[in-house]
């Protein structure tokens, strides 16, 4: 493959990977706090819809982006209510959230199907965009992509070098130890769920504000589930999440590009690639020792008597 085809492929990988990256980072924050949220897909759909409707009504893309985050936060708070207040099963609650969020977004969105809204357009970074190879691949996108470049580093700093990050990681490893230290373990978990939901909502916003500027049913189309798998692939590390999201984005773009390039491989086989990769990733991850999964992931905090 020559660079004439490689550059568009990598550019497409970054764009396809960005919504997954936002959602994966959101799920990493949630899981670091020991909460498994399988409702990413539903939270993304709500973010996606609220972003579209806000952009439609106000014409302000940034306001729409923020609204999507808040919508994600609100949707995820249902998960917090079930798991933290009522001590419900996290897996069941997450699955219910996927069905609920997707269904509600589709229901509310029915009158708006096929309508367009203002959104983000590519904004080349002066200087950097002219770089050979790197310029078109990384610096010729919309502002939401640039924002996503900064997030993993910020998250790493928060996890490693802040009291809040330490508390968040501790509550994911051992809520009992956090309680013994006199901290409010439940509050940290709320923090993980809500901030995580905010990021998932932003991932949804990318789909309706930047990727397309249209609304339709099921715009997320399973990207939330890929995010759940990517968290494991990334070993719960924000940096590796970037790599994983672009890898998946690249594979999704690659199979269409192989077809456009006139390959004789059956298209059914090519369309399987992202999902085959998901399975491969899970196999690969299970062979690795010490995957650094938060020790208390998926278990609720026992109410103290």
């Amino acid at each position: 493959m020559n660079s004439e085809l490689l550059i568009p492929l990598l550019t497409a990988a970054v764009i396809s990977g960005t919504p997954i990256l936002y959602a994966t980072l959101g799920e990493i924050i949630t899981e670091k706090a020991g909460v498994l949220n399988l409702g990413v897909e539903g939270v993304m759909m709500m973010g996606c819809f609220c972003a579209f409707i806000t952009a439609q009504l106000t014409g302000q893309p940034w306001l729409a982006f923020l609204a999507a985050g808040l919508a994600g936060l609100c949707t995820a708070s249902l998960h917090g209510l079930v798991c933290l207040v009522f001590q419900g099963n996290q897996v069941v609650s997450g699955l219910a959230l996927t069905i609920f969020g997707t269904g509600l977004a589709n229901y509310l969105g029915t009158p708006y199907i096929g309508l367009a809204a203002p959104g983000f357009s590519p904004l080349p970074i002066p200087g950097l965009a002219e770089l050979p190879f790197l310029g078109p691949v990384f610096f010729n996108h919309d502002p939401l992509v640039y924002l996503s470049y900064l997030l993993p580093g910020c998250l790493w700093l928060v996890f490693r070098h802040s009291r809040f990050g330490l508390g968040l990681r501790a509550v994911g490893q051992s809520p009992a130890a956090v309680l013994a230290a006199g901290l409010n373990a439940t509050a940290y978990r709320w923090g993980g769920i809500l901030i995580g939901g905010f990021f998932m909502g932003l991932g949804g916003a990318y789909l309706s504000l930047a990727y397309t500027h249209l609304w339709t049913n099921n715009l997320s189309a399973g990207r939330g589930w890929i995010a759940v798998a990517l968290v494991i692939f990334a070993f719960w590390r924000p940096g590796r999440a970037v790599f994983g999201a672009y890898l998946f984005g690249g594979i999704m773009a690659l199979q269409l590009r192989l077809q456009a390039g006139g390959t004789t491989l059956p298209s059914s086989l090519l369309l399987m690639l992202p999902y085959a990769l998901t399975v491969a990733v899970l196999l690969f991850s299970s062979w690795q020792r010490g995957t650094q999964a938060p020790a208390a992931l998926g278990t609720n905090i026992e109410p103290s008597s």
Partner: protein
Amino acid sequence: MRLHLRSSLVIFCALLAVFVFSQPSLAADKDLKIGFVYVSPIGDGGWSYAHDIARQAMDKMPGISTSYVEAVPEGPDSERVMLQMARKKYDLIFATSFGYMDPMLKVANQFPNTIFMHCSGFKTAKNMGNYFGRIYQARYLTGMVAASMSTSKVIGYVAAFPIPEVIRGINAFTLGVQSVQPDASVRVVWTKTWYDPVKEKEAAKSLLDVGADVITQHQDSPGPQEAAQEKGVYSIGYNTDMAKFAPRAHLTAPVWNWLPYYEKIIAEVRAGSWAPRADWPGMAEGVVDIAPFGPMVPQEVQEKVLAKKAAIIAGSEKIFVGPLKDQSGTVRIAEGVVAPDSDLLSMNWLVQGVIGTTE
């Protein structure tokens, strides 16, 4: 006691007679209740929207009331929806997606007094007919337009599933392209979805990256149109006039116009002359057409295309006439032979000049 039994028997027979003879027969001028079952939301601007435009026009006709259920998943859900309509004594039910075929057949067998019409399938019953349109005729014409506007001689085709309906469309389009530019190629990307704007747009972008300068689609979302406009090249839509999604790119589109056909069926049902059959109307019947040309299409191209359209309507021009070769160069339709409908309905090979697979 015996008398008692006899009189109750008489009463029973009388009741039975009343019941039998009061069964609604579809007499002339009877008010018709018509139901529609759609696979996608009517706001999709595509396939279901095209049917719904016809339904809205029918609703305004005297003695006709219509209703619809949208976004009905194919399979058991659709059976439930059709069952409900039949129980509510609908006279005529249209279901407009391939996957409604078997559920409809089941319901049709239970309700012999209701007439069922299935779009895009191949099964019929005593009270069930099927119908579709020769959209490939319009695709041929849009292929001519695409080739006239292309300078790179590469045209991108974003397609849903490799089934005869879609393959037939790609072949007709390509023949239209080759009638203007014999050495042009049509590149196909399969998305394996009818409606996913994000994926369809990405598929269109991948075609733009390999040099396509006109994009067309057999998809129900305007995603590919958006991609073409952003790149500053041309596009050809599908289903309905998609110009509103990409006014600077949209050249024309193969479009559906179901009203003339539905009016014909209503007239037949009212006259009592309806009989189950498979209908395949085309441009001559007004069911298939092309959308108005965009302002960028030169006058002489428009005239050439419209002349061809007139010839197709008159029947003097057929689309699939031999010699036609497949991608490997094997002759599939011999010289001078007009492909029969049975060949068209089972078409599973791509003509020479198409770059892509059917797998």
